[in-house]
């Protein structure tokens, strides 16, 4: 029954989008983290989506191929009183763009909702299929 693989496709989309939401949450939480376990300022993370085969040749799901560090330049602020400031008084802060992350969050949550809707529609169709002839 090929309708069942819609669940796999929608499920893969929901899993990928929820991981994207997780990464956004991590970026927003660390938007001002001047240091970390490595001693360097937090670098913004971004997920990379990749298409995967869910069934033989038709259904294409999605998965997170990896989480990459954003290569954009770090935010440098002049604040000589800051404990992490260098000898010239500059502090390196994360390259998290809060506006970008909010947009990313909305996009991820809408895509997640799409996954939920696909599952609901397919569930209704399958239930009706089971009641053929009744």
């Amino acid at each position, binding site marked *: *029954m*090929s*309708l069942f*693989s*819609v669940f796999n*496709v*929608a499920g*893969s*989309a929901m899993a990928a*989008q929820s991981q*994207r939401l997780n990464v956004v949450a991590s970026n927003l939480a660390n938007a001002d983290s001047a240091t970390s376990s490595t001693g360097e300022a937090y670098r913004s993370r971004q997920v*990379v*989506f*990749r*298409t995967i085969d*869910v*069934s*033989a*040749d*038709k*259904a*294409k*799901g*999605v998965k997170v191929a990896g989480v990459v560090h954003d290569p954009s330049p770090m935010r440098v602020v002049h604040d000589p009183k800051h404990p992490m400031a260098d000898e010239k008084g500059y502090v390196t802060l994360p390259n998290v763009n809060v506006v970008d992350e909010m947009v990313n969050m909305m*996009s991820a949550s809408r*895509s997640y909702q*799409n*996954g939920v809707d*696909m599952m609901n*529609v*397919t569930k*209704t*169709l399958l239930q*009706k*299929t089971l*009641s*053929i*002839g*009744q």
Partner: protein
Amino acid sequence: MISKLENLVGFNQRALGLRATRQELLSGNIANADTPGFKARDFDFAKAMQNVQSPQRVQHSSLATTAPGHIGMADFRSITSVPKQYRVPQQPSIDGNTVDMDTERMQFMDNAIRYDAGLTFISGQFRTLLSAIREGN
């Protein structure tokens, strides 16, 4: 009796199979709305329906299988072998993704309703048959 049943519900059964395949394909498009480089796919339902209906495409084991490891020819009417086409994007995006969410959601709902209609037709046919079996009671 079985061939009569096939004559009765065969058309709707194949239509439902194609609808289910299309539903799966469209769900893949929606799932990959944010994947860079993903090309949205779909198929022409009318052509696919003609494809699974046409009797000249039925080929039963035309390949010779001379060793136990050989695999015979599959039934050509299999609904999984419908030719898929890439959708022409209305507003192409810079990352190469051609999923247009409005189009895909619309097609997804449209396909779901048509699947539902197919189910209603097939249920009606079974009810007609049952009514005949029970002599109208």
